């Protein structure tokens, strides 16, 4: 064990910071730092900008367009993006899901056709996994893809589909082998979101934002060339992604910066009120969160470095990823709530993502509070998405302790 950061990484960090300072649009950075969601324009623009630099997909192999970074460099890139307020497009469905499955299991034609537009941002993907009847029990999903000559006929319904409203493509998990056991009956398909039979319905969430959707698939024709890899191997590919998930959903680099924002809010006098930092109770709350996050950062770094080495895919590694998701999500909620509490009644106004209160021009609000409630409300889902906490605990038990009694 050697825990000192290699000195040459300082130069890399400076290079990344410099790039972000000159290329990250101010309005987008403000939205991200305040707690709003990036718009479609934000996401595509950032994808384009990083694409021109060759930095869109930090974790992709060099032969498919990745920059050839080490795990630590990738971590530092993410860290600087969090500091600057850049959206993490590398975790979205195109770069984070469709791309890796395509370059690992796809055909040469599929790689040539689909990987480059992911890197430039010309094509945006959404993830078609969850269904109304299949949340945690994903393997039992019911959307079918029935073979019919040189097509599959896809029927069913997906839900919680982020960015479906503007995605060109869906990475679809559907049932192609109805007579097999549930996990063995699924296949990965590339579905054209503009094809006839695709209907997208927006879902507004507690953060007053539209980021997820319901997608109805009514006899959508998908060409057989759009099958990725083998029929019936869809679940294996999905599990491959899970085992190789480099980021732990802990968002620790973002949370670190949110604590800096909390610190600033506590130090800023509000009218005639003394700054809250003068109150030992607030100092203790901030201190406790800072301590948790500083240790968590090392746990996340370990996960990042363990990926791609001998630890990757091991039982302990899988359990560790689940552990980071559980604790990381909890910290995210507490940090977001702490900022709302520090802002007090200012946080109760409904701000739009330009800092104004949309339903009342000239309002006596406080734009510095804009986005705080959006983030806090969205973070309520951190115990639910990407595998609910109960599923993560089940994974930990299964991977670490299920064999202990034998």
């Amino acid at each position, binding site marked *: 064990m050697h825990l000192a950061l290699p000195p040459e990484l300082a130069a890399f960090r400076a290079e990344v910071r410099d790039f972000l300072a000159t290329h990250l649009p101010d309005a987008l950075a403000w939205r991200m730092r305040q707690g709003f969601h990036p718009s479609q324009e934000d996401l595509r623009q950032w994808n384009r900008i990083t694409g021109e630099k060759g930095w869109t997909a930090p974790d992709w192999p060099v032969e498919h367009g990745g920059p050839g970074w080490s795990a630590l460099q990738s971590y530092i890139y993410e860290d600087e993006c969090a500091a600057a307020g850049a959206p993490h497009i590398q975790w979205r469905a195109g770069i984070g899901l469709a791309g890796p499955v395509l370059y690992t299991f796809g055909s040469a034609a599929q790689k040539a056709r689909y990987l480059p537009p992911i890197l430039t941002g010309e094509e945006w993907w959404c993830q078609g996994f969850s269904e109304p009847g299949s949340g*945690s029990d994903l393997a039992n999903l019911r959307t079918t893809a029935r073979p019919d000559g040189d097509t599959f006929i896809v029927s069913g319904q997906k839900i919680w589909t982020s960015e479906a409203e503007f995605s060109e493509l869906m990475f679809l998990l559907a049932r192609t082998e109805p007579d097999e056991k549930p996990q063995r009956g699924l296949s990965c398909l590339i579905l054209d979101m503009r094809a006839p039979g695709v209907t997208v319905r927006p879902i*507004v969430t*507690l953060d007053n934002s539209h980021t997820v959707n319901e997608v109805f698939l009514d006899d959508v024709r998908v060409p057989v060339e759009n099958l990725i890899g083998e029929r019936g191997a869809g679940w294996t590919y999905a599990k491959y992604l899970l085992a190789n998930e480099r980021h732990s959903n802990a968002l620790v680099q973002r949370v670190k910066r949110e604590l800096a924002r909390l610190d600033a809010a506590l130090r800023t006098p509000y009218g005639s009120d003394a700054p809250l930092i003068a109150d030992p109770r607030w100092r203790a709350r901030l201190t406790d969160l800072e301590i948790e996050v500083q240790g968590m950062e090392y746990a996340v770094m370990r996960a990042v470095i363990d990926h791609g080495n001998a630890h990757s895919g091991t039982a302990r590694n899988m359990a560790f990823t689940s552990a980071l998701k559980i604790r990381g999500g909890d910290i995210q909620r507490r940090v977001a709530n702490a900022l709302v509490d520090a802002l*007090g009644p200012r*946080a109760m106004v409904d701000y739009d993502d330009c800092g104004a209160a949309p339903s009342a021009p000239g309002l006596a*609000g406080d734009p510095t509070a804009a986005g705080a409630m959006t983030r806090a409300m969205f973070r*309520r889902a951190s115990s639910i998405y990407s595998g609910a906490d109960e599923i993560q605990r089940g994974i930990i038990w299964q991977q670490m302790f299920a064999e202990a009694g034998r």
Partner: protein
Amino acid sequence: MIFDLDDDQEAIRDSIARFVAEHYPLPPAYALPSHSLPGHARASHWAALADLGWLGVAVAQTKGGLGMTVEDWAVIVAELGRGLADEPFLSTALLAPLFLTDSNEGDAVLPDLVAGRCRVVPALLEPGRRYGFFDPATRAVEGPGGITLSGIKTQVDHGAEADIFLLSARDATGKLLLLTVDARAPGVTLTPYRSYEGRKIADLRLDDAPARALLCEGESAHDAIDRAISLAATMQAAEAVGGMEAAIDLTARFLWDRNQFNQPLARFQALQHRMADLFVDLEVARGHLHGALAGLRAGGAAAVRATSGGKVAVMRAAERVTGECIHLHGAMGMTLEHPVGHFYRHAITLEKAWGDIDYHLRRYETAAHATMIAGGA
């Protein structure tokens, strides 16, 4: 001392419960407010509430009201909380009478308030600081025609529907005043908007607006605001308890209705234990509500400790319980189309109005440990 509802209180509860179920459908049965659209989604049933006499629960029978007890009020408010009813009941039916009692202005206004013809809303919160209830920036200037007011009050509960505002201000010597102002008086500008939760609020701007009446000043005004804070904290605790009950009931039913892995979620012990924990949180919170109700009667420092301490405890429980109920619903709990998430959002609204947890912790400490603080410890 009896903790169960008596027959009259059960009748009150059932009556309000029926009213709420009939008039305030839960999502997705009502159109959802969108923060990019004007207008609001949920109709007000203020006139119907008035017809049933409920607006008079805090007005003495001798003044045309029902003269009920604080416990009775808590029963009503809890049912409103169960149904997420969006009405300024606390503001107009409970707090306004507290400020107006034993005044000429009260004699003039309360009968119309009880009849639903006159909506009186307290407006004490100002922008630019967290709370500051006792030293408002709004200025009262004594002139030949009477008192005029200048300043801004923010996030006024259903301010756009108000007929009369009940305001705090300070005069040139810094003395605290409580006054009323006609909503349609010259110099009054109202900016309606919506809170994060989608509830109707308004900012009130006064430019030399003439006051209707001076209710009280100095020490009396201070006491009135202090009693209002205690009452508001207690009633918010009651509303939060109602919300927790409803969220828990919804969640228990959901766990039986929702199947994953070929069985109802209710069969999973981990989830059974989470529900059990919610029950613990709820019933202990109820104890805090009862303590606050009992403390209101005591007055003085005891009232402050019971009501502020009670609000702190109940709001912490409400955030935890309603948040857990969302978690137990999975992603469905995150949509505005499902009622469970609304209980969580409303729990936070309740916490932030009339002093948040931070405010009430300080208020409790001032009452409980003042000598320690004064001694410089």
